[in-house]
């Protein structure tokens, strides 16, 4: 298993994709962090009638790492799997490791260090872009506050979990283009709408917090959605949220193991 982990890790870091996407992630989150920080500081009353102050403003901005940035670890994770099929390297991979469960397990775990790096860079980008605005013109950056630090640390963790979810998803949808389209559609459109829509109906609002993005917010303990009280405010407790998100990874990986990886390869 150790050798399989080293091999999977090398697969990730021997192409340019991981750092190209990492740069994109940093640039995008830095931009969004700056925009949101700016609007909170200079035009707080425009935010849907809800005004955020003090530590709430800081936490709301910092939680963007997960709320907006989770598409990046999802994509890099799914690519780890789908490139194997796109370029047929899956053949060689299964020649050196015919135990397909071990192969998939190693791939899931080997993304964790890369995911943590993405998390670290994403958090740094958001904080670096927004903290000076919050500190200089707003109510403060709160970077020494225990609760805020916890949010930042858990944001790093949750990004790594998203990378694992990405691998598991890629094992189900092995077509690279399809996987990316589905990820973009789900993260940018389907889930945000579903969270707001489900949250608007009594009875269904309990369902919303089990959506993967909402579960991730639950791990962080802060949500861009909940900050603005859009009706999807309620989050799961941290431990439960972590279990839910890992559950998504496990369920997808199991499906991948018994569909994609049960089939003939090539």
């Amino acid at each position, binding site marked *: 298993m150790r050798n399989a982990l080293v091999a999977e890790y090398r697969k990730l870091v*021997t192409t340019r994709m991981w750092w190209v996407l990492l740069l994109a992630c940093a640039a995008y989150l830095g931009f969004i962090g700056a925009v949101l920080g700016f609007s909170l500081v200079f035009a707080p009353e425009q935010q849907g009638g809800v005004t955020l102050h003090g530590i709430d403003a800081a936490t709301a901005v910092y939680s963007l790492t997960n709320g907006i940035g989770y598409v990046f670890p999802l994509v890099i994770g799914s690519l780890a799997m789908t*490139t194997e099929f796109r370029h047929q*390297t899956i053949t060689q991979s299964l020649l*050196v490791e015919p135990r397909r469960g071990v192969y998939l397990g190693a791939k899931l775990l080997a993304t964790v260090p890369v995911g943590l790096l993405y998390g670290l860079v994403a958090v740094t980008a958001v904080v670096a872009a927004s903290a000076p605005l919050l500190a200089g013109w707003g109510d403060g950056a709160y970077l020494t506050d225990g609760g805020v630090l916890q949010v930042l640390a858990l944001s790093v963790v949750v990004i790594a979990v998203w990378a694992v979810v990405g691998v598991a998803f890629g094992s189900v949808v092995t077509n690279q283009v399809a996987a990316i389209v589905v990820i973009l559609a789900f993260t940018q459109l389907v889930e945000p709408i579903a969270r707001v829509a489900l949250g608007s109906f009594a009875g269904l609002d309990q369902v919303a917090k089990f959506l993967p993005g909402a579960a991730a917010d639950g791990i962080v303990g802060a949500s861009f959605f909940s900050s603005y009280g859009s009706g999807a405010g309620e989050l799961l407790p941290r431990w439960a949220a972590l279990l839910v998100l890992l559950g998504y990874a496990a369920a997808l990986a199991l499906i991948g193991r018994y569909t994609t990886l049960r089939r003939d390869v*090539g």
Partner: protein
Amino acid sequence: MTQPGPALAVEGLAKSFGPVRAVDDLTFAVRPGAVTGFLGPNGAGKTTTLRMLLGLTRPTAGRTLVGDRPYGEHALPARVVGAALEASSFHPGRTGLAHLEVFAPQVGVSRRRCRDLIDFVGLGGAAHRRVGGYSTGMRQRLALATALLGDPPAIVLDEPANGLDPEGIVWLRRLLRAFADEGRTVLVSSHVLAEVQHTVDDVVIIAAGRLVHASSLADLAGLAAPETYVESPDLPAVERLCAEHAWDVRPGERGLLVLAPSAEVGAAAYRSGVELHQLASRGADLEDVFLRLTGGVRS
């Protein structure tokens, strides 16, 4: 590599893709210490068979063995069989050396071994170039290096000569010969007999998923009947002559094809005073035998 390589066995193997029977009740064995050519036209089921031998494709029926057990049940299978199935299965964005280093841990070899191998296959100068810029021949060499990572006692190569330059083909030929002489098991597929006929000791020929011939190359050559093309103003006389000698005759372009050596046909015609305008040896070569066995047509 001190022990002889494992024998490879295919037993009652079958594979259906929907209604298509790609491999059908196929049985053959590959011995160590020899180069075995696995031959058949494109689409005969060669690659599917090799994929089943290597545990990538599940047989509909039958089984395959590497030594005493299926490929996947060896502890470190890539140290038992080195395989190169397609020259195209590389990530184009990875360098040649990185490709080897990715698979090295599971084969149980060092980066040093990767470096040595990439030099050995003649890609030393391109080791740090991305595979996307490699020619087909270079990809073949990289595929071979991947197969050789674990210094395996058995080697399985699918169409290894495709895209290799003539120099590369000679190099590959010598390499495979040396492996066999060391006692390794070498199985090489090809759709062109001529490509491997100077390399192989044994042949396994399949067509439409079924075994049509398995023997030593010498025995295959024994099936190559000589043919003589004859033109004559009196073809009926030639036909009578052939009937006397019990030679099979087929119509040629403007004459006849006689299934006999040209010297004998010429002598017989001379003795009987039959006038001949052409007497050409068209000795059926191995390729003809191969095409006859596989039902193919010479291009």
